[in-house]
């Protein structure tokens, strides 16, 4: 319900909206739908600029460096620890069943198919996604994005396309590195500290992990990269004014990217299984 009141001091009609919990729920739903629409439109415009105009190398290289090269240490450390932790956690159960030598297959298949891509993408969403949202948010509130437009340059073409390319092209490589470091970490802990026989550890790994498994993980990472770039840049572009607004944009960039990563992982998992069972009906291939 709304009613018009007249403020006694100014004699200007003031509209007062009475809100109920139902109004608020409705508003939240409306805002969420509008936000998804806005992100979809933003993504479509970005892809259209990607096709129309390839960014200059002088713009691309700093983005590639910031997103790819600077992320190498954090992704390498994360990957190594995932492998090591998996070995420690799984060893006890496998030892109780006398299957220690199978440890390699479990660690490595988990790494290349699921944990490597998802955790590498999560680390990047935290490191790169938040940073992109904060940088673009600051540019928005200090009118730098308006300045780009005023100079006849499309801000999406100049700011978003290079970041999207860097994320899509480099996150798969970072995923491969996370996989590799995880495999090494898991193998070192298993064979050197937990005394699992090295020959059988690698033998079972080779038996169980194939090129298609690695491909499945890398394929997912392309989508994760695109989601991180688009969600984070969108948050940055729509940042509210002030330090609080920029901080909120950075936080939302990570949270929404993380949700997108998990949702994409789920959807691609289903699609992959459908295709896999379609081609090889007698084999099991849960992604």
């Amino acid at each position, binding site marked *: 319900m709304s009613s018009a009141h007249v403020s006694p*001091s100014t004699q*200007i009609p003031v509209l007062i909206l009475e809100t109920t919990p139902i109004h608020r729920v409705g508003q939240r739903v409306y805002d969420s739908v509008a936000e998804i629409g806005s992100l979809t439109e933003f993504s479509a415009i970005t892809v259209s600029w990607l096709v129309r105009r390839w960014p200059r190398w002088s713009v691309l290289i700093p983005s590639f460096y910031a997103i790819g090269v600077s992320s190498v240490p954090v992704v390498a450390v994360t990957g190594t620890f995932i492998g090591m932790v998996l070995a420690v956690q799984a060893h006890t159960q496998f030892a109780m069943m006398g299957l220690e030598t199978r440890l390699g297959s479990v660690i490595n298949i988990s790494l290349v198919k699921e944990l490597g891509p998802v955790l590498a993408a999560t680390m990047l969403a935290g490191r790169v996604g938040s940073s992109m949202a904060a940088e673009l948010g600051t540019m928005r509130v200090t*009118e*730098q994005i*308006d300045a780009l437009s*005023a*100079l006849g340059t499309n801000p999406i073409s100049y700011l978003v396309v290079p970041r999207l390319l860097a994320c899509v092209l480099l996150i798969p490589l970072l995923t491969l590195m996370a996989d590799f470091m995880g495999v090494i970490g898991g193998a070192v802990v298993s064979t050197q500290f937990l005394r699992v026989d090295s020959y059988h550890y690698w033998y079972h790994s080779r038996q169980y992990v194939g090129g298609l498994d690695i491909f499945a993980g890398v394929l997912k990472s392309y989508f994760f990269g695109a989601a991180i770039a688009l969600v984070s840049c969108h948050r940055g572009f729509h940042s509210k004014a002030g330090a609080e607004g920029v901080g909120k944009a950075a936080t939302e960039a990570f949270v929404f990217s993380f949700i997108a990563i998990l949702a994409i992982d789920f959807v691609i998992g289903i699609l992959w299984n459908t295709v896999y069972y379609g081609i090889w009906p007698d084999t099991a291939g849960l992604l």
Partner: protein
Amino acid sequence: MNGPILELNQISMRFGRQNVLRNLTIHVKRGETLCVIGESGCGKTVLLKLMIGLLKPTRGVVKFDGQDLAGLKQHELAKMRIRFGFLFQMAALFDSLTIFDNVAFGLREHNLAEGDALTRIVAERLQEVGLPPGLEGKKPAELSGGQRKRVGLARALALNPEVMLYDEPTTGLDPIMTDVINELILQTQRTKKATGIVVTHEMKTVTKVADRVVMLYPLARLGPQDSQILYDGPPEGLEESPDLRVRQFVRGEAGERLRELAQQREAVTD
């Protein structure tokens, strides 16, 4: 061409539930320097952004050189914007680029100069705004407020614009630097023959650079039928304006505003 270079016809602008501009008609002649004055929040910056197509009006038509901006495609709008220079309130220099790259930005993006020619143009523009050589390699964060404003002006002038838009060019500067920026606006007007639109609070800037002044008033304090433009004329006529609000603004007297604030305080206390 004798017609106005910029035309705003019956412009209204609304953000959410907030009306900022209402039925505004302003025509800017070629070569003239128009100062837009008014209290904070009356829509001066919005007006500038409408002129260059950074914002689209809720209602009304904006024309540049006879062309309706609403009818332009993205690439046509980008091409049109090259004919403008925009000095933003806080200069809006690109943090990640050096001073050289900031000034060279438009020239590079539109392939208008490269190599030695680019270096020469950037050096000339920085010299025109009175910046000493040696700053080219620095980042904007290493400069003072006045230097940043001058780099912003050099960047805006790099493309030899036909229309210069200045958004509060002297805000936050000391009186000496304010005078330097005013002189630079005058110099741009004389040497480049560019049309200028200056949004400002500073009456010194108005008296120094303006050919014509438009004073806007916040919509929140106007009645539904009142015009948002309180004054449109030469700067000399401001003091003699029949409208008390114009005279009070020019003299820097709170007047009516103080009474309104007192009334609001009383209303809250009651």
